[in-house]
């Protein structure tokens, strides 16, 4: 690599990093103050990009029109952020953190469909920046002038943010609230207004990040989740809540990716896949190294526990035998009594129920929230498919071996994950899922790439829908039973002890990290089993089984049902799968409808459906007993 090409790659990287920095800074700021991981932050970026496109079309492709559009779009996105805060999040600040997360997932769904409705499914290619469409010659290479401008914008925004945070009272309030928002309230500061303002600023940053990309990348509906994944990586590498860290991390990752592409250019044509593979590996490697060396990111600090009087999770109750036996009897009778459609739908539900129960195990009792649980589900599906198609194993062997393969992946992923906790852990799991997804997506010759695998059918004796229904019930039921049983074993108690008080658990001799690692592997293997059963029920496997959307579906199922009960995830998986099926048959905008339904549930039942029902029945019982005593 010549000196000139090094400089060029450096500039490329810095230009790409600008938007990444903006969106990550906004995410970090919002998280710091509100403790909400705003999954919808990528959606705000996407809206910024779409908004700029539409505004430029309206205002004209002149320099004035272009820059007015960029600014207006960013401000409009800021207002969308305010709307989200005021209409949704403000009502649930006292709800458990995970429920706030669920609300932001719902917002992602709603925004995606609003974008689909407004701008359609086609990618929209924006204009070059008027007046800046030329290229500047540097060391004999041509660099778009607009890229140079982007390189300048990053530090300027960093400076502005720094001044805002350190030189204004608003900044002092934001930093104070990041540490102890209750105390800030006791000093007479209206938190609601502060939060709204923080949401505005954070959303403007995301919107600006998106709008500035209009000459560089087409507006499309996939941006929301891909951007949030990148922003998570940047925030984790930089340190949550640190704007400077976000800047550093964005630059580091942007430049490293650019260099990978630069190195890959040795083989210009046909080698495209290799570059992007390398860029992903590099992003991941940076994150893995940083997190192992500095678990709170480059410039992050250990998270101060926010003083919120959260009640500890109540003890779990064992589902009664009556529940289990009656449930099993009913399910066994289904193929006899119901039609084919119900049988197929229930087969799906079994797979997702095991998926949800395994996710619940790790995020509830084990206390490790996973944003990337689809990694194990999807890898299970692919392992089963590949063992059969590429290794030539019989279907039965593939189905049984697939969970073991996934368990091996979980050994590796888990080793990193259990070194972290809280949001850092959650984001790392997401990163692993993204990496798994991209490898599967890009390795055409082995995994079938974006097309996926076809002809993954069960053996003849299981080919009937009814036969497969019983197989799915047996395998998934056994998986659920195993996980539930483990929860009430000493191992399960140790995990729960570790969740409630890591210090005390270690003080009585529990090697918490080892236990958590084992839990990761167990849960990964069983999610893999769910994926394998799912794969053979469909006959084909698509990369979407590993996608972020699949991971968030799992989270929605668990949170919808309620994370504090064992039956919650079952109910959540059943309701979600059924509802999605019903809604998707009626409207193209099923995501938006689901989003609205979830929002309604979040606002009405902040403890999840099963938790909410429990609370309702308890209130009813108390009222009854009061009447009796009165």
């Amino acid at each position: 690599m010549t000196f000139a090409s090094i400089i060029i790659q450096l500039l490329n990287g810095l230009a790409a990093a600008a938007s990444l920095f903006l969106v990550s800074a906004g995410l970090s700021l919002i998280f710091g103050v509100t403790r909400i991981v705003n999954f919808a932050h990528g959606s705000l970026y996407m809206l910024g990009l779409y908004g700029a496109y539409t505004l430029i079309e309206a205002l004209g492709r002149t320099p004035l029109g272009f820059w007015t559009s960029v600014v207006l779009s960013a401000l409009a996105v800021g207002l969308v952020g305010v709307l989200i805060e005021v209409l949704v999040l403000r009502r649930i600040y006292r709800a458990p953190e995970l429920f706030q997360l669920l609300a932001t997932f719902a917002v992602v769904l709603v925004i995606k469909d609003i974008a689909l409705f407004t701008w359609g499914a086609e990618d929209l290619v924006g204009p070059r920046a008027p007046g800046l469409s030329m290229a500047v010659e540097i060391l004999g290479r041509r660099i778009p002038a607009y890229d140079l401008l982007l390189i300048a914008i990053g530090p300027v925004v960093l400076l502005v943010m720094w001044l805002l945070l350190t030189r204004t009272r608003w900044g002092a309030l934001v930093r104070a609230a990041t540490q102890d928002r209750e105390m800030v309230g006791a000093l007479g500061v209206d938190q609601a207004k502060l939060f709204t303002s923080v949401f505005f600023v954070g959303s403007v940053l995301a919107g600006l990040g998106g709008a500035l990309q209009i000459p560089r990348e087409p507006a499309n509906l996939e941006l929301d989740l891909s951007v949030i994944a990148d922003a998570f990586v940047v925030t984790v590498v930089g340190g949550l809540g640190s704007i400077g860290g976000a800047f550093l991390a964005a630059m580091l990752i942007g430049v490293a990716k650019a260099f990978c592409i630069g190195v890959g250019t040795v083989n210009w044509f046909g080698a495209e896949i290799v570059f992007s593979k390398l860029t992903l590996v590099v992003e991941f490697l940076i994150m893995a190294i940083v997190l192992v060396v500095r678990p709170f990111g480059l410039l992050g600090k250990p998270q101060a526990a926010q003083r919120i009087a959260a009640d500890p999770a109540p003890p779990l109750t064992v589902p009664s035998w009556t529940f289990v036996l009656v449930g099993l009897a009913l399910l066994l009778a289904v193929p006899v009594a119901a039609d084919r459609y119900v049988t197929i739908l229930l087969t799906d539900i079994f797979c997702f129920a095991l998926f949800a129960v395994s996710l619940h195990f790790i995020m509830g009792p084990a206390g490790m929230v996973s944003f990337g649980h689809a990694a194990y589900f999807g890898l299970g599906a692919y392992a089963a498919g590949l063992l059969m198609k590429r290794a030539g194993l019989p279907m039965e062997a593939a189905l049984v071996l697939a969970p073991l393969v996934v368990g091996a992946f979980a050994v590796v992923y888990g080793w990193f994950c259990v070194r972290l906790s809280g949001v850092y852990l959650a984001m790392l799991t997401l990163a692993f899922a993204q990496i798994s997804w991209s490898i599967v997506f890009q390795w055409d010759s082995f995994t079938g790439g974006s097309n996926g695998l076809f002809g993954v059918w069960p053996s003849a004796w299981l080919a009937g829908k009814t036969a497969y229904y019983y197989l799915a019930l047996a395998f998934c039921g056994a998986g659920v039973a195993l996980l539930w049983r483990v929860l009430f074993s000493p191992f399960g108690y140790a995990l729960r002890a570790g969740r409630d008080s890591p210090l005390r658990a270690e003080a009585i001799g529990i090697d918490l990290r080892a236990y958590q690692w084992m839990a990761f592997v167990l849960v990964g293997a069983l999610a893999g089993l769910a994926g394998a059963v799912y794969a053979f029920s469909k006959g084909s496997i698509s990369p979407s089984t590993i996608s972020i959307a699949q991971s968030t579906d799992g989270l929605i199922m668990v949170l919808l049902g309620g994370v504090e009960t064992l039956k919650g995830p079952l109910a959540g998986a059943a309701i979600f799968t059924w509802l999605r099926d019903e809604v998707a048959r009626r409207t193209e905008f099923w995501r938006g409808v689901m989003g609205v339904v979830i929002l309604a549930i979040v606002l009405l039942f902040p403890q999840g459906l099963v938790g909410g029902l429990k609370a309702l029945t308890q209130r009813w019982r108390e009222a009854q007993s009061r009447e009796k005593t009165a």
Partner: protein
Amino acid sequence: MLLVKDLHAYYGRAHILHGVSLEASAGDVVALLGRNGAGKSTVMKTIMGLVSAARGEVTFDGRRIERLPPYRIARLGLGYVPEDRRIFTELSVMENLAVGLQPPRAGAPSWTEDKLFALFPNLANMRERPGGRMSGGEQQMLTIARTLMGNPRCVLLDEPSEGLAPIIVEQMARSIHALKGEGLCVLLSEQNLHFSQAVADRAYIIEKGQIRFGGSMAELTADASLREQYLSV
């Protein structure tokens, strides 16, 4: 000025306050005495709205406040100084003060940074120092100064002498006298009887979430058995 009537509060399911009643008027320094875990801090937090009142009334300046959120209570002119100080460690002294700032209030002394530095001279020498790099005594002064920036008419001081060196405790006592001189109403919780005797006019004794004694400091000083029963360790 501050009137608490039959206050009940819970932490989760644990019933902490069982009908606490007390009052404090302008220019009055009132001590709330009791052993560890008697409920002193909970009284303060419940008055401030940080713990929700399950039953009972809190009246401040003729207004019922037990259902208001903490920031509204603070804006009515009731200041709160927490037991564990809760300094913003990343913020400098000046920034900590800025967070506490509220507009001047009729009928309450108006504080400025300079006036506060006169009251707590140590702070004047470390305006730009981050809160996390201050000693316990300095942090205690800062947390009081920060609350005073809100120009309160009444302050709740939760264990102001706790963990401080004797010389700092003396300084703290002088500061509380100064607040009384400004006409503030002060309700302080204490385990340190000597300190309370030095600063307070009246006293309440709380045990197991109930008020066991209310009267003048002189009465309490005269009654050895009362002290023996509720305060000796």
